[in-house]
């Protein structure tokens, strides 16, 4: 393509033109940490507006713009404040806001109704989109850029993977359902989408992207930012990148991104370890299935890319700084390699197939921006993509967004007005900003990002650290040294922030690093960069390697297993990147040197501005909208036609159908023509979705709603389905109709798998029933089955849910084992909740007929025994318990025994044979029913142990029989702490416990 040629040309010009500005930018970005000397001077205030634009504004803007993004809020807020502190000009914020708002509006139109789910999805998508958008930009500018896109995606994935790790626990346990708000649930949600309607998630993302691209990018950037934070900017982030590839393969990029962001925001302890399992097994299948669609292509590309960049990957453990450096290198390589075009093109195709159609479109549609500009963009993109490191992405995204803005006007017609406006605004800002460029910038940005260190940290750098940095720069005699020093400083700071020692460390005592020889850096910029990266890698490695390794392996495995063909393409690409890196590196250094010199002269105040400027500079012109539309298109086509995409004429049509497609995704079978009705229906459904469970029995609050029109008719034929708490209106393609559900229930009933699996399956069955408003004997059976399993397993929370549903269903006259369950209910209330009023009311509710039922009678007797403290009766009833009454009584056994022994030790004098105690307290069978000596003996020993464990005083009398010394025991009895007690009170939530129980 012509692109290939362009990039090359662009490359050359870039260094000269852009370099200066560019360099300055990098500094600006990185400066916050490094602050001081060189950079400040170099960047004058001329570009203040752009500066402001670049960085901080985004965060604020995102906050403002995204009403829907509740989840992110915490992070945003945090980040936002920090940004503001750092002091970028406020004006930029305003601009950003503009962006955001358009986005929000456009987005809302499609999704608004179900805020949570929609937002959520959009988030994911936004991430994905962002990736794609950045990718898009890349293609336009350079062929190399096209390659980059995949990486970006991978980045998103990576992030998600890391997140996923944290979340794993939830998924496995299925608890995430309950904790919908928590990050894990989201991830799982993302995951879910992928599984069921992979296309679904994407389409929405695409839509969002198309309309909102600018905003998306911003968000994306922010998200990354967040990600970086969580990652600690250090190894985690890098790790994330690696796994990301793998995950991406399995998961749609979107989901991954979403998951990632969440985790970062919420550091849910459980999540960290748990996620992997899910991605590992489930994702693979998914990926395969998707393969045709085009996801595979992307992933493979990513995967390959990783392997090729061994150095980068290895360092993956290295903190963001390292990544940054790597990125820079890669970016440079890319640049130089312009020839790589073809490679990149292949990548682009893949990307396009992926859904990120945007990429192809951008390439075609958007006329290549000024070379310098383009080149920078590509670099940025590459850097970000390659690095995946979240940090890198941040700068990139920004750059991309700027780039896109210019393109948007061209494409504009298709885009929503909101987006267009945004684009323009961005353009205006971007125009001036162009100059900046860079690999260096990326690094700086990274540092900021990396410094996971919480926004606060970013905002305020310790004075001592500033002095430290100044000292280090003061030693630099040459520009090359400065650049090197800068990189080092970044590393140090990143590391410190990652470790949380940024503020605790005594920077005044911290030894300065020995400076690399300036000559070396200058002459072999590429080499140097690699060296740096390697150095960084090594350092980080020691710390982070272990973590990183696993993700990498995973990724590799996935890639190899899933994608064969695509991988090749990807391979080619990595090579290209290194070359480019070299070039970039050189230019960067050059710039830096200049900057530094300027820096010294200019005061600190200018410094901030410079920073911002650096971000601003890229005015790449990408057709964001086009890319988005492409995505959507592909999605709608289920990715099958992805490769062929990127036809500009088609774009318009696609845009028109975007919203329709979105709907379509959600409601399978509905044709685009129905979009409007679908929309309203969806909106209604979303509005109701939240309340659905509560209201499921009663229509009172929603009398005027036509439920029948909203009721989903499932089409899914899969018998097995993982449970995922719905975050949006159900997709019929993922909902199983009644006959399939019946099979599913049978499958669960006959399954040999553990409770967790069954619970998950039953929950998904319940969900499908609820969604389809099926309330009949099957529903009752499902709830009964689940309740029984829960009782057997001791999962009272789940049991409670089932019980309350059963109560309602029985009340509606649906047949079932209602006596059995009223017995369970009685036992549960009297034994476990100890709520006298509940007990009274449930006793009062019993009909005379049900009081004749054996199970109910038994339960009432147990209640009486518990209430009077008649332990003998309790244990006799325990042995005679029908159904699962035993299981519920089990849970009270310990307490009952303790009470019994307490009263025995008070009442009996002088002693009481342990044998008798064992018999009374159900350790062994009573004399009449004694069957075998063996069980008898073990029961006796159990009793002895139990008594000892509870502080009873035992002594043997003359005949050799062990006796309980009543008087002595009275004061020594105690209730030992349950061995499996956990601080959060629910042992079933403990990770260890979970791991041991999981198959």
């Amino acid at each position, binding site marked *: 393509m012509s692109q290939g040629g362009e990039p090359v040309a662009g490359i050359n010009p870039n260094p000269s033109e852009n370099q200066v500005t560019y360099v300055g930018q990098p500094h600006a970005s990185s400066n916050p940490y490094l602050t001081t000397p060189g950079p400040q001077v170099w960047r004058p205030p001329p570009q203040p507006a752009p500066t402001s634009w670049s960085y901080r504004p985004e965060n604020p803007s995102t906050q403002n713009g995204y009403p829907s993004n509740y989840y992110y809020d915490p992070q945003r807020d945090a980040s936002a404040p920090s940004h503001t502190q750092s002091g970028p000009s406020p004006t930029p914020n305003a601009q950003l806001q503009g962006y955001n708002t358009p986005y929000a509006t456009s987005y809302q139109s499609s999704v608004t109704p179900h805020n949570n789910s929609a937002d959520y999805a959009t988030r994911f998508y936004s991430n994905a989109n962002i990736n794609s958008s950045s990718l898009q930009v890349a293609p336009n500018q350079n062929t190399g850029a096209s390659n980059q896109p995949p990486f970006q995606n991978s980045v998103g994935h990576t992030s998600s993977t890391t997140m996923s790790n944290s979340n794993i626990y939830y998924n496995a346990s299925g608890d995430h359902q309950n904790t919908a708000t928590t990050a894990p649930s989201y991830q799982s949600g993302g995951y879910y989408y992928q599984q069921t309607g992979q296309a679904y998630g994407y389409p929405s993302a695409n839509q969002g992207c198309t309309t909102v691209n600018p905003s998306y990018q911003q968000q994306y950037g922010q998200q990354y930012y967040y990600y970086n934070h969580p990652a600690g900017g250090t190894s985690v982030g890098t790790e994330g990148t690696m796994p990301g590839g793998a995950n991406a393969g399995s998961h749609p990029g979107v989901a991954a991104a979403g998951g990632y962001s969440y985790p970062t925001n919420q550091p849910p302890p459980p999540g960290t370890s748990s996620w992997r399992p899910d991605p590992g097994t489930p994702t693979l299948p998914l990926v395969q299935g998707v393969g045709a669609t085009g996801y595979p292509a992307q992933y493979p590309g990513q995967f390959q890319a990783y392997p090729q960049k061994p150095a980068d990957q290895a360092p993956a453990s290295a903190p963001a700084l390292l990544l940054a450096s790597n990125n820079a290198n890669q970016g440079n390589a890319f640049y130089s390699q312009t020839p790589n075009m073809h490679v990149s093109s292949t990548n682009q195709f893949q990307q396009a197939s992926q859904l990120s159609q945007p990429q192809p479109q951008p390439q075609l549609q958007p006329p290549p921006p000024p070379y310098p500009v383009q080149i920078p963009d590509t670099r940025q993109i590459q850097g970000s993509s390659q690095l995946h490191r979240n940090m890198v992405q941040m700068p990139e995204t920004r750059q991309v967004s700027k780039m896109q803005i210019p393109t948007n006007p061209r494409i504009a017609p298709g885009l929503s007005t909101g987006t267009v406006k945004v684009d323009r605004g961005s353009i205006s800002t971007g125009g001036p900003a162009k100059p900046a460029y860079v690999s260096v910038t990326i690094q700086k940005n990274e540092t900021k990002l990396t410094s996971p260190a919480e926004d606060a940290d970013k905002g305020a750098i310790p004075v001592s650290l500033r002095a430290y940095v100044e000292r280090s720069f003061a030693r630099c005699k040459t520009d090359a040294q400065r650049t090197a020093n800068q990189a080092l400083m970044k590393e140090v700071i990143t590391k410190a922030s990652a470790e949380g020692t940024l503020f605790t460390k005594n920077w005044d005592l911290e030894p300065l690093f020995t400076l690399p020889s300036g000559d070396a850096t200058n002459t072999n910029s590429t080499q140097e960069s690699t060296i740096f990266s390697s150095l960084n890698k090594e350092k980080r490695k020691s710390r982070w390697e272990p973590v990183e390794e696993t993700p990498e392996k995973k990724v590799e495995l996935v890639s190899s297993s899933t994608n064969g063909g695509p991988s090749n393409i990807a391979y080619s690409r990595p090579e290209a990147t290194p070359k480019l890196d070299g070039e970039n590196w050189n230019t960067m250094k050059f710039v830096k040197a200049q900057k530094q010199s300027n820096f010294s002269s200019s005061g600190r105040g200018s410094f901030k501005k410079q920073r911002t400027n650096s971000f601003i500079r890229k005015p790449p012109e990408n057709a964001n909208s086009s890319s988005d539309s492409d995505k959507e298109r592909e999605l709608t086509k289920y990715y099958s036609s992805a490769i062929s995409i990127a036809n500009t004429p088609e774009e318009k049509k696609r845009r028109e159908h975007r919203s329709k497609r979105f709907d379509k995704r959600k409601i399978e079978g509905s044709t685009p023509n129905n979009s409007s009705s679908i929309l309203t229906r969806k909106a209604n459904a979303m509005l109701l979705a939240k309340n659905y469970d509560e209201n499921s029995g009663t229509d009172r609050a929603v009398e005027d709603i036509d439920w029948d029109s909203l009721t989903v008719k499932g089409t899914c034929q899969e018998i097995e389905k993982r449970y995922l708490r719905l975050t949006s209106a159900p997709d019929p393609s993922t909902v199983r109709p009644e006959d399939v559900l019946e099979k599913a229930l049978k499958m669960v009933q006959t399954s040999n798998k553990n409770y967790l699996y069954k619970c998950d399956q039953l929950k998904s069955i319940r969900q499908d029933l609820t969604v389809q408003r099926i309330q009949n004997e099957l529903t009752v059976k499902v709830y009964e089955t689940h309740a029984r399993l829960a009782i057997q397993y001791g999962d009272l929370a789940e049991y409670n849910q089932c019980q309350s549903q059963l109560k309602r269903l029985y009340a509606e006259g649906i047949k079932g084992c209602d006596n059995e369950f009223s017995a369970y209910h009685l036992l549960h209330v009297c034994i476990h909740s100890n709520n*006298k*009023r509940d007990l009274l009311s449930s006793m*009062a509710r019993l009909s005379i007929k049900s009081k004749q039922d054996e199970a109910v009678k038994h339960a009432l007797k147990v209640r009486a025994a518990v*209430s*009077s403290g008649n332990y003998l009766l309790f244990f006799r009833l325990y042995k005679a318990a029908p159904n699962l009454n035993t299981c519920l009584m089990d849970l009270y056994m310990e307490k009952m025994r303790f009470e019994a022994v307490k*009263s025995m030790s008070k009442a009996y004098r002088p002693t009481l044979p342990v044998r008798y105690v064992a018999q009374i307290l159900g350790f062994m069978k009573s004399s009449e029913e004694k069957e075998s000596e063996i069980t008898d003996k073990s029961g006796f020993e159990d009793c002895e142990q139990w008594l000892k464990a509870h502080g009873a005083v035992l002594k043997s009398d003359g005949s050799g029989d062990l006796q309980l010394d009543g008087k002595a025991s009275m004061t020594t009895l105690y209730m030992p702490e349950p061995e499996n007690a956990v601080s959060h009170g629910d042992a079933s939530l403990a990770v260890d416990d979970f791991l041991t129980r999981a198959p």
Partner: protein
Amino acid sequence: MAAYLSLAESQRRIAGYLHRFVDAIARQDGATLRPLLAVSSGASLLPISDALANFPDSSRLVTQSDQIAQFAEILLPLLRSIQSHRLRCFAEAYSSYEKAANAFLQEFRNWETPWAMEAVHAIALEIRLLAEKGDRELASVGKSPEKLQAAGSFLMKVFGALAGKGPKRVGALYITCQLFKIYFKLGTVHLCRSVIRSIETARIFDFEEFPLKDKVTYMYYTGRLEVFNESFLAADQKLTYALARSDPLNMSNMRMILKYLIPVKLSLGILPKMSLLKKYSLMEYKDVIEALKTGDVRLLRQALQDHEEQFLRSGVYLVLEKLELIVYQRLVKKIYIIQKQKDPDKAHQIKLDLIIKAFKWLGIDMDVDEGECIVTMLIYKNLIKGYFAHKSKVCVLSKNDPFPKLSGKPVMAS
């Protein structure tokens, strides 16, 4: 009847009502205002409701004069409510009344003195009664009754307006009592807790300064809550407070309190006279008391079974059920007394056989282990002083006060 009213007469009545309403507010005359708000209970509104039925354009009368129109937000829904109530559309009447009440509350917040307290209390009562009627109506047509719940949340708003510092606080307890009535009716007694906390923790205002009738009602309901919690001492104290201060001639109030106080007292070992039961027609407790006196376990069980539904509904079933141990104690004590008459020296040793025999005599079969368990429980709960010898199956009683009386102390909780 309405048909006989002339249009002019109707208009005159409505206008008169409106003027009385506005005048009462202008003169800050709570006593006059109160009956004007009593939609369901006051016969005083009958003429107006007739007039309203006859005069369709009542809203015009409200908006006619500025003086009246300033309270249009109260009066318009109020008139509608009166009309709906007259037509026996209680759910609608409630909805309108709630609107009026909300508007009135808004005004009330702005009045610095509590002159309108009577009116607010009238509203609180009315809204609860209307909600109950509305719910009955809704339930009869198969809709879910939700008005009482809504009334509960409205009263919480009223409570919020009163419960702070200042002179209006005096009226808060009345609202609390109305809330109690709603919560007990709805079975959501856990919601009482926040209100109680607000009443009991506010040191600014002495509880005794509340009106007596509110104090009695409050103590009655909190006493009932204590019965649910089976904290008998607190329940005893509260219910006794209520009993002592309520009018002994008000039979129904006395009976309501005694219904809970008697089981509480029984749990504390204090038995009422039969005449009390008769006087307040609480004969369902007769057999229970008899069983406690005689140690007749069978009688107790029979009484519980006979009145099970009643006891379950009032919530004293579990309390009465727990009396069984005391009945056991009485039974063993009887054995002891008889034994003592025969052979004072060995009286403190009661053979398990004897106890089991006694149970059998009462028609209750039990084996040795069960007998042991019961004796163990009695000893454990301090109903018997002594010990049990497992080997010889003998319960050895302390020579000093082997059967301690409860005398106001509850049986030790398990």
